[in-house]
């Protein structure tokens, strides 16, 4: 019985090695690059501009930037035929990108405009981000302190446990952001065309709110002093035409007012939430 147990254990070990090995072989298209920083003690900046693909950035207690790139198999995409004259199509997923570090700024670029690459990037906890993508991917950020400029055309923007200030824009999907702490005194902006804006602030935030949605509603659990008097009027004189535009934004103040935070969407709702 004892021998049997030994053998069983051995078989399990062998099997698990084989399984891990095969997993590794399957996942070998993934590429990883580690970039050390010029000044590891100072905050850095990451710039990723993609055309196709998702970007996920997570802060970790280290001082290198770890980039993991995975090609997306594009079997469902395009009008590529699977066969031609009875011959089968061979697909392989090469991956091409560059990652560059200079003076604590890391820039990542995809080399092929027609290929989709998903990036998973680990950055030191104090890192500013400039992330942009157009198609086939969401942007996700977690646990980072810095200044953030985020833009996505056809995917969502999702940020969690953020410290600092954010300018975020998602055209066709929603923006969801939850702050641990904000940089007091720095203006912020969140915008979308077809998505909801859902932003969670710490309860003690001081801010001037300016919110505008054409076809949606504004919801909040903050006490906002809505300034009903303040209607912004823009006048314009051009080619002899005098034009007056009334802006239908909601203006208000949270905790006495502070830096201006702008929310703007056309078809979505705006949710300004208090961090619990």
């Amino acid at each position, binding site marked *: 019985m004892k021998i049997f147990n030994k053998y069983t254990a051995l078989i399990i070990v062998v099997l698990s090695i084989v399984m891990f090995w095969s997993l590794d072989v399957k996942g070998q*298209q993934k*590429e990883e*690059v580690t*970039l*050390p920083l*010029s000044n590891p003690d100072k905050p850095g900046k990451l710039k990723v501009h993609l055309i196709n693909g998702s970007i996920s950035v997570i802060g970790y207690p280290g001082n290198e930037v770890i980039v993991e*790139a995975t090609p997306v198999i594009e079997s469902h995409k395009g009008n*590529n*035929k699977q*066969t*031609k*004259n*009875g*011959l*089968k*199509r*061979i*697909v*392989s*997923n*090469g*991956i*091409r*990108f*560059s*990652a*560059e*570090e*200079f*003076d604590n700024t890391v820039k990542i670029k995809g*080399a*092929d405009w*027609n290929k989709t690459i998903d990036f998973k990037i680990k950055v030191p906890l104090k890192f500013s981000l400039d992330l942009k993508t157009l198609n086939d991917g969401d942007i996700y950020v977690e646990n980072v302190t810095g200044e953030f400029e985020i833009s996505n055309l056809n995917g969502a923007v999702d940020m969690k446990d953020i410290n600092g200030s954010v300018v975020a824009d998602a055209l066709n999907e929603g923006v969801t952001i939850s702050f641990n702490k904000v940089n007091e005194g720095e203006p912020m902006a969140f915008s979308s065309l077809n998505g909801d804006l859902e932003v969670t602030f710490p309860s003690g935030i001081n801010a001037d709110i300016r919110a505008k949605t054409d076809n949606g509603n504004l919801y909040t659990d903050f006490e906002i002093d809505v300034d009903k008097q303040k209607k912004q009027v823009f006048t314009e004189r051009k080619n002899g035409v005098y034009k007056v535009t009334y802006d239908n934004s909601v203006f208000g103040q949270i905790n006495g007012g502070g830096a201006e935070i702008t929310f703007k969407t056309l078809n979505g709702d705006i949710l300004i939430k208090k961090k619990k």
Partner: protein
Amino acid sequence: MNTNIKLSTVNDGNIYVKGVQCKLIRTNNVNGAITMEDIAGKTLASALNEDINISYATAPLDDSTFKSLNGDININVNSDLNAEVSFKSLNGDFYTNIESVQASTKTTTKKTGGKRGTKYEVNAKDSFQLGKGGSQLSFDLLNGDVTLKRN
């Protein structure tokens, strides 16, 4: 078998080669096609705007290169082909009826350091192993497809 052939033209014409066995066949055409039948030997063929059609009497044993910007590249072989294929096309695909094809994507990571900091370039070429692998066949296209057919 020790002959080298070099053929080159630019406008208003095609290049046609038949039944030649030589060490190296180098053909270059800008606005016309390249057609080669029953040939053998190392091949360097480039047709900018038209197709390249090659049928080999014996599959190339030496490294060969095929390039086209706007045309397709069609290769026929009679025997089993053992080769490493590297393929690059922006808008085209690679088609074959050879059964034993293994994708062996080669990734190179190049690190450059200098005044502008550290730069990593990850570069992968789509490459496949046909049969047991062997000579290197590279296909470099922009808009065309590659068909590699065993008769």
